[in-house]
């Protein structure tokens, strides 16, 4: 892979802009000031991302040295096609969820005051993860993201939110410790933290093997792969709606991104022979387990949260087929499509719940023709999650299926298909309840148009990405080859 060292600070801006927005929203928490801050921050971030993407398109990968120091002393920002896609997904989801939040928290002065700084902080942390070029930096940015998430989960208040926020925090701290120990061991053996340099020097010695196990295990707990998923459903379901969307769509992707990055750039196959297979098996169990659990939920947000457990499993099917570029494309596309579709689905579910005043799936029968947009968004996002065309999830599953047949590991194909059918099994009853006629329709609360629009925009985008997959995927042709 060719990479160029650039002086253009587009990557750095992607972290600086959210931080500035966080500071601004803390200092000036008025509605007009918030509007002005986001009116500047989002276009500026889009602009920086576009220029960064252009550089990556031309050269494959870029590296930026903050303050002119190179590694190992300074901080390096690094971006390639994978980073660009993740950054893109992040900005889109954060923006839609921000629009949603501006209605969701309106009138709730106290929460609004703490929400916006934390929210922007979360965005900064996410961008930081996707732009980090060394393993220690990844740790720092990951922690920023986790602290912001925990605070955001607990924002709702009440016993359940605090408990699940606390549980998430504990799991996350343990995961971080494990990760940090692994990083320390690598640093002790090789004296390097930079990902590219590590990849060139690491060898199959026991210290490296233990370090890798520690790092990956720590990250698995944070990304909630089965059986370390136990904290996720409650945490995602009890958070405020826009936070749930960001958690499911983005926050669990960050640790996964690190695993993927390390796997492709640092860990070579002779160091970790059976680990790929093991991750694949865990991923498969997650797909099925998450799906079955989602089938059994009676509350809408819990169902959507368990669906995340299932969908995360698909990401891990990449590892046993790591040699295939189809598997890589499929896995990345799954991350992207799930990000957009799940965020949309959480927002849509939030609207339905707000209108009904109840989050029981059964009660959706009482809903009468009020929320067509949100229902449509839920359905379209569902198409993508089920892996049906023309959703983006279909392209992801097509690529994973192709990889599994190509590499002769046909058993993953059965899991992929079964997972899709399970998704249909738990999503269609929701739609069915909305369509069905109830004897006693309840009086529905009004949902602002902005909240419905945020959900449908993300859902439509997840379809557009399914039809126009060629554009995002071509980013990788420069990045991979």
């Amino acid at each position, binding site marked *: 892979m060719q990479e160029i060292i650039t002086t253009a600070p587009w990557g750095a801006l992607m972290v600086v802009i959210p931080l500035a927005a966080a500071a601004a929203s803390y200092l000036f928490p008025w509605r007009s000031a918030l509007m002005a801050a986001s009116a500047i921050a989002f276009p500026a971030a889009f602009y920086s991302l576009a220029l960064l993407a252009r550089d990556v398109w031309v050269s494959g990968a870029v590296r930026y040295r903050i303050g002119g120091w190179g590694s190992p002393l300074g901080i390096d920002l690094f971006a390639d096609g994978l980073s660009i896609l993740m950054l893109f997904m992040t900005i889109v989801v954060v923006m839609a969820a921000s629009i949603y939040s501006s209605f969701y928290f309106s009138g709730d002065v106290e929460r609004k005051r703490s929400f916006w700084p934390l929210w922007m902080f979360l965005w900064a942390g996410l961008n930081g993860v996707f732009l980090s070029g060394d393993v220690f930096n990844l740790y720092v940015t990951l922690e920023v993201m986790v602290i912001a998430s925990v605070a955001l989960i607990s924002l709702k208040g009440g016993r359940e939110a605090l408990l699940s926020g606390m549980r998430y925090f504990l799991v996350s701290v343990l995961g971080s410790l494990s990760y940090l120990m692994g990083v320390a061991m690598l640093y002790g053996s090789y004296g390097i933290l930079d990902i590219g340099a590590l990849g060139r020097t690491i060898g199959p010695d026991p210290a490296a093997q233990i370090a890798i196990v520690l790092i990956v295990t720590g990250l698995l707990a944070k990304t909630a792969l089965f059986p370390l998923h136990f904290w996720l459903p409650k945490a995602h379901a009890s958070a405020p709606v826009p936070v749930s969307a960001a958690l499911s769509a983005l926050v669990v992707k960050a640790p996964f991104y690190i695993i993927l990055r390390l796997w492709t750039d640092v860990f070579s196959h002779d160091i970790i022979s059976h680990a790929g297979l093991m991750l694949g098996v865990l991923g498969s169990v997650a797909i099925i387990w998450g799906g079955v659990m989602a089938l059994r939920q009676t509350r809408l947000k819990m169902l959507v949260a368990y669906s995340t457990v299932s969908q995360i499993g698909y990401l891990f099917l990449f590892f046993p087929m790591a040699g295939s570029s189809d598997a890589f494309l499929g896995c990345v596309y799954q991350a992207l499509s799930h990000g957009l579709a799940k965020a949309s689905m959480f927002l849509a579910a939030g609207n339905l719940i707000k209108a009904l005043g109840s989050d029981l799936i059964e009660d959706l029968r009482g809903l009468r023709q009020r929320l067509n947009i949100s229902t449509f968004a839920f359905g379209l996002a569902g198409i993508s999650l089920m892996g049906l*065309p023309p959703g983006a999830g279909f392209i992801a599953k097509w690529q994973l299926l192709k990889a599994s047949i190509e590499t002769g590991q046909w058993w993953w194909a059965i899991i992929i298909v079964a997972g899709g059918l399970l998704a249909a099994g738990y999503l269609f009853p929701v739609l069915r309840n909305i369509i069905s006629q109830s004897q006693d329709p309840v009086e529905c609360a009004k949902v602002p148009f902005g909240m419905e629009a945020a959900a449908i925009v993300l859902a439509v985008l997840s379809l557009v990405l399914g039809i126009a997959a060629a554009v995002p995927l071509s980013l990788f042709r420069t990045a991979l080859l």
Partner: protein
Amino acid sequence: MNIDNWMPVFVILSSLVPAIIIFLLNERQNILRTIINMSAAFIKIALVGMMTWGVFHERNYIMHFPVVPGIEIIFRADALAMFFLILSAGLWLLTTAYAVGYLEGSPNRRRFFGFFSLCVTSTMGISLAGNLFTFFIFYEMLTLTTYPLVVHRGTQKSLEAGSTYLRYTLSGGAVLLIGIVWLHVQTGTLEFTQGGYLNHAAGGHAVTLTIIFALLIIGLAVKTAIIPLHGWLPAAMVAPAPVSALLHAVAVVKAGAFGIVRVVNNVYGVEFAATLGVTMPLAFVASATIIYGSFKALFQDDLKKRLAYSTISQVSYIVLGVAIAGPLSTIGGITHIVHQGIMKITLFFCAGVLAETLGIHRISEMRGVGRRLPMTMAAFTIAALGMIGVPPTVGFITKWYLGIGAIDAGQTWVLAVLGMSTLLNAAYFLPIINSAWFIKQSGDWPEEKKRGRFFETDPWLLFPVLIIACFTILAGILAGEFFSPLEWAKLITEREYR
């Protein structure tokens, strides 16, 4: 830019765009919605007509969109595509008109017509698909867009039928997907080719290719309602009559049958499929379905259920004709795509008129109905005679070609299947005709509604019925003319065996 290449895209957009507009309209804007719907249907027919003329003169309509490295969405209009396209476009117009009358005053019409247009869009995509990838996209889209139509009434029964429908079709789609991806990995291409592209494949894959064939056919057989995968079709009868009509004549079952024709003719190639030995089992299953469907139909008192089992039986004629693997039977099978479509849609339209005008749902309630609804029942009689295969209707043409095709290919046992099916068809249709015309009405109609002042029923319902019934006879009498379905099927087969 070549305008020809964009024609398939325009055809698809001509129902996709109206669908989106309809969803954006207000529920109460009925007149505007009807105007948009009807004009879109006319525009589509005009576009399809232009393309038909072009395909006849061997013009190329082909469009590529790259999706994933190595995979493209391809739209292409060949003779077979046009065949299905004309059927869909024509029947869309009539069914829309019929549905406007049928659903007058009922709730959720925006949702209905929106998904109705999307459903037709999927059918257009299925016919114009130039490779299996594109085919699959629209095939699954069809499943998703018909679901809201099946459960349209929102009653417990229709919701259950919808769930059954999804269970069958989504599982079938999953099997089909595995088959398609596997085929792609094996051959590196999915593009439909005249005469099939597997005929030059290297030997040694024979077992793999047989398994893939089985996967593809099983996936398609669910929608085609071939036994034992037919269970969803009788259940889906709870849908409103225009939906049943569309499901049975054009959209769902036809999509499956059309897919089987594509796989046998344009993927495997008839000759290669025959040497693989996969066509004979297919012919047996199709024959079994023909007999089973007719047999089950005998015992249904619910009119729509009887028609549903009749569909199971009739659609398998298409599969049988293709599976016999001879040019004449292929003509018979392909021409039945249109023939079955126009006959079956007439019958379902009539069933809808009976239900909407007099509240009749059961055959036992139909005594003497010929007096009250003479024109409707005349149409019903024509279509039923066609189903039995009485000359000069289109049903006769199909059976004739299937018969001589079977003899030509040395499969004389097929004649026994055809004979038996004809007898069974007569056994379940003639009593209906008999009681409608020759038995006196006893008691009141179940639920008479005043529909239509000048005619026996609402003209929006009646005229589509009469128009389509005329085609049943015309297409039979004029089968020798160059514009008939039969001649077009001959053209397809000619290009296939060339």
